[in-house]
């Protein structure tokens, strides 16, 4: 390096400047550094780690459910415990694992994939994580203290209302939902801005990787879906706390209003988990098929279409509530229509695999498993979109089977593919392929053994959310089979955990690009330095890493002594302005704590919503207040105009 320093052309960094850049963008060391961190990679890593902890907890709850249902008339759990556990399972998997982990992966990957230094609003990003963490801890504190919610993850009123769910259990649920919404909305906004405004020069709309498109679509879905559940959970909390009547039929309220608001969020939520997963798959397949993706434009358009149509499906959760038939047919049409973009995606993936030369590493195995499970879940999805069939299948184990094929198949499998694929980027070490294959096969077989029989249980009349069943029903053998499958999934997750911890210690060092992948994140070190790229890349195509030669152009002239990022134009990603990012701060944590106090106190007394803001304002002020800077810095600020 030292020898080249002398010949460095104008604008390229010398090692000393590089060191300065490193210092500028680093989080602080030690515990204080941990609570003040704003680097998108450190926040995302703890986000992913926390989400996986909740995944394991949710999995343990699933194991308890399957153990209870393994045989008829089982007395392992009483109905009170069972109701809490299945509610916790659903709430954990949807609110504390599914949505957060997808947004966390995006927070890690998007800034790297679009070639920028950090996410658009780093402190807001930290706030999102803290809020989510407080929500998760609050829910589990409640659960440990026998105050776990017990009205289902959908909390239908009036069962979840003040009369039939007395106590604080459902309040805990409602506030947890509020916390996770805040976190999700924050992530959505900052991801949208990162994608629209911080792309590397040359990454015009037609050169954005599919995954980044998927995150963009997902973020917009979050933006329009989450306010609905925020409103619903607020109304529920008010009904329970101050005696309002939104859902009280005796005073002009309406239980169906809850269902409309909830499913207006609840159905798009499935796509909040699925669309990024489709993005993972679309960016993993070309790497392992060793061929450019077939039908990039079709894929992107189908993701956009999926995002739009996902808002037209919510009533198919309400086909048995007695809505007029004509309206139902509209939603059947929409539910069938969404199969078309999904079909296009599947066909493009299969076509790429067919035309390429597949390399059967673990990420591709998970992708193939995903396609199989997703096609199955998609077909049962078409089945339940039909009103007459749904009148039989609704609220039975057929739906349980369908939703787990979609959730596990079309979300968890791609997520595992993504973890196997990007783990070396995040940690610098590869996961073990041998354990990975065990992980995959146990998981794939386990999922099918668990959930395939449940289709039949549903058609045999087994309803959902039952804590036990009578021997005469004849549901025993298939339930036992299902529980055996659940045990296999459990073992496979254990293999995964072992793989992660073993590989962290003694995994094969990955190097910058172990897979020969095409997206920008592989153009920097593994794990990436705090500033992501020493020189921001200039992008000339859809597969930058495959197309860029050794002498590809880069961006020069960004400052090293301040957190400068490049803002580019929305459509063509032409360099447009330089924006500065804030550094580490404890304010996000304090604001999150103030929000936590507001909503947790709000469970017990409406005064929480008076006391909370009193705490919130000083912490917000601390966040916004500019620090008095030395004269040299001021000069820099003025000069930069």
């Amino acid at each position, binding site marked *: 390096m030292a020898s080249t320093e002398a010949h460095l*052309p104008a*604008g*390229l960094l010398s090692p000393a400047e590089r060191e300065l850049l490193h210092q500028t963008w680093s989080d602080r060391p030690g515990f204080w550094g941990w609570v003040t961190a704003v680097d998108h990679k450190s926040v995302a890593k703890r986000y992913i780690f926390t989400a996986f902890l909740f995944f394991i907890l949710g999995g343990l709850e699933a194991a308890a459910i399957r153990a209870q249902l393994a045989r008829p008339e089982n007395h392992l759990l009483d109905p009170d415990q069972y109701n809490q556990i299945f509610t916790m399972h659903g709430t954990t998997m949807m609110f504390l694992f599914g949505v957060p982990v997808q947004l966390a992966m995006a927070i890690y990957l998007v800034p790297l994939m679009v070639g920028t230094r950090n996410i658009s*609003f780093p402190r*807001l990003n930290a706030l999102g994580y803290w809020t989510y963490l407080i929500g998760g801890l609050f829910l589990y504190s409640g659960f440990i203290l026998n105050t776990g919610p017990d009205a289902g993850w959908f909390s239908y009123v009036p069962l979840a209302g003040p009369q039939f769910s007395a106590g604080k259990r459902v309040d805990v649920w409602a506030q947890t939902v509020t916390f996770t919404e805040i976190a999700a909305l924050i992530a*959505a*906004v900052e991801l*949208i*801005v990162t994608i629209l*405004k*911080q792309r590397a020069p040359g990454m015009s709309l037609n050169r954005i990787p599919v995954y980044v498109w998927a995150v963009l679509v997902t973020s917009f879905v979050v*933006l329009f879906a*989450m*306010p609905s559940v925020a*409103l619903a959970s*607020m*109304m529920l909390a008010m*009904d329970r706390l*101050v005696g*309002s*009547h*939104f859902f*009280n039929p005796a*005073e*002009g*309220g*309406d239980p169906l209003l809850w269902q409309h*608001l909830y499913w*207006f969020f609840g159905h798009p939520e499935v796509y909040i988990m699925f669309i990024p997963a489709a993005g993972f798959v679309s960016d993993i397949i070309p790497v392992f098929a060793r061929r450019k993706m077939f039908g990039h434009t079709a894929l992107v358009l189908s993701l956009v279409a999926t995002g739009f149509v996902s808002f037209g499906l919510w009533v198919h959760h309400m086909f048995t509530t007695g809505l007029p038939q004509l309206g139902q047919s509209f939603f059947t049409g929409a539910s069938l229509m969404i199969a078309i973009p999904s079909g296009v995606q599947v066909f493009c993936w299969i076509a790429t695999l067919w035309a390429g030369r597949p390399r059967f590493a673990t990420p591709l195995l998970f992708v193939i498993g995903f396609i199989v499970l997703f096609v199955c879940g998609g077909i049962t999805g078409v089945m339940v979109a039909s009103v007459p069939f749904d009148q039989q299948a609704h609220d039975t184990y057929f739906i349980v089977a369908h939703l787990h094929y979609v959730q596990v198949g079309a979300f968890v499998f791609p997520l595992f593919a993504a973890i196997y694929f990007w783990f070396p980027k995040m940690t610098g070490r590869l996961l073990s392929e041998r354990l990975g294959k065990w992980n995959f096969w146990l998981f794939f077989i386990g999922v099918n053994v668990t959930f395939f029989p449940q289709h039949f249980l549903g058609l045999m009349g087994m309803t959902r959310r039952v804590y036990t069943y009578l021997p005469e029903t004849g549901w025993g053998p298939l339930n036992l089979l299902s529980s055996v499958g659940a045990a296999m999934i459990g073992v496979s997750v254990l293999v995964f955990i072992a793989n992660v911890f073993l590989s962290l210690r003694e995994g094969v060092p990955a190097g910058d690009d172990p897979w020969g992948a095409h997206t920008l994140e592989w*153009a920097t070190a593994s794990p990436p330095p705090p500033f992501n790229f020493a*020189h921001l890349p*200039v992008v000339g195509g859809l597969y930058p890493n495959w197309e860029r030669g*050794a*002498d*590809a*152009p*880069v*961006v*020069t*002239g*960004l400052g090293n002594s301040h957190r400068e990022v*490049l*803002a580019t134009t929305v459509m063509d990603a032409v*360099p*447009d*302005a*330089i*924006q*500065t990012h804030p550094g580490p701060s404890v304010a996000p944590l304090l604001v999150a704590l103030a929000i936590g106090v507001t909503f947790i106190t709000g469970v017990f007394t409406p005064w929480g919503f008076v006391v909370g*803001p009193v705490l919130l*304002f000083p912490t*917000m002020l601390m966040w916004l207040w*500019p*620090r008095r*800077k030395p004269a040299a810095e*001021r000069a820099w*600020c*003025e000069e*930069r*105009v």
Partner: protein
Amino acid sequence: MTPRQTGNVDVSGLPSVVFGQRALLWWGTLGFALIEGFSLVLTIASYLYLRQNEFDWPPGRTPNPDLLIPTVNTVLLLAMIVPMHAVDRAAKAFDGRGVRRNFAIATVMGAVVMTLRWWELLALNVRWDTHAYGSAAWAVVLMHSTLVIVDVFESATFCAIFRHGTAERKHYPDASDAAGYQYFLSLAWIPVYVVVFWLPRIL
């Protein structure tokens, strides 16, 4: 990585203080305004949904909401656009005094709006726990009030930053964004005003 010697994109000449959609924060503000606006739309939709459940609206012997205070407040809220527009213009001219003075005016007006909000809630002539009509009307007004609180806080903070703080040039675009948020806030009130205070008379 050995970047090539020539043909690199030099960005050192780009400005760092930019207004409107060239700035990141403008987009962030837009994102949150979208969220809040859509929440308001959903709240109004819930209000109208609950309306289907009653023959009369307001139901039973509940009186119509009063109009005086809400109308005064609406005018005041719309009038806030004037000082905020001045803030926007002053910010774009990097006129610190103008920004500060107009933020101060807007803060005071916002505080008055917030105070009048209390009487506005009383003007609904119904308690939130009377029946669903009461709950829905309170919810719509309170939903908008949270936006007003945020806005007053924001204006006061900017006022303080520009008075006592070390306001830099980079704060001027933020002030301009705050003006944009205020326009959204004032205009978002109009549907609330029409739905909550006029609709019961019309329907």
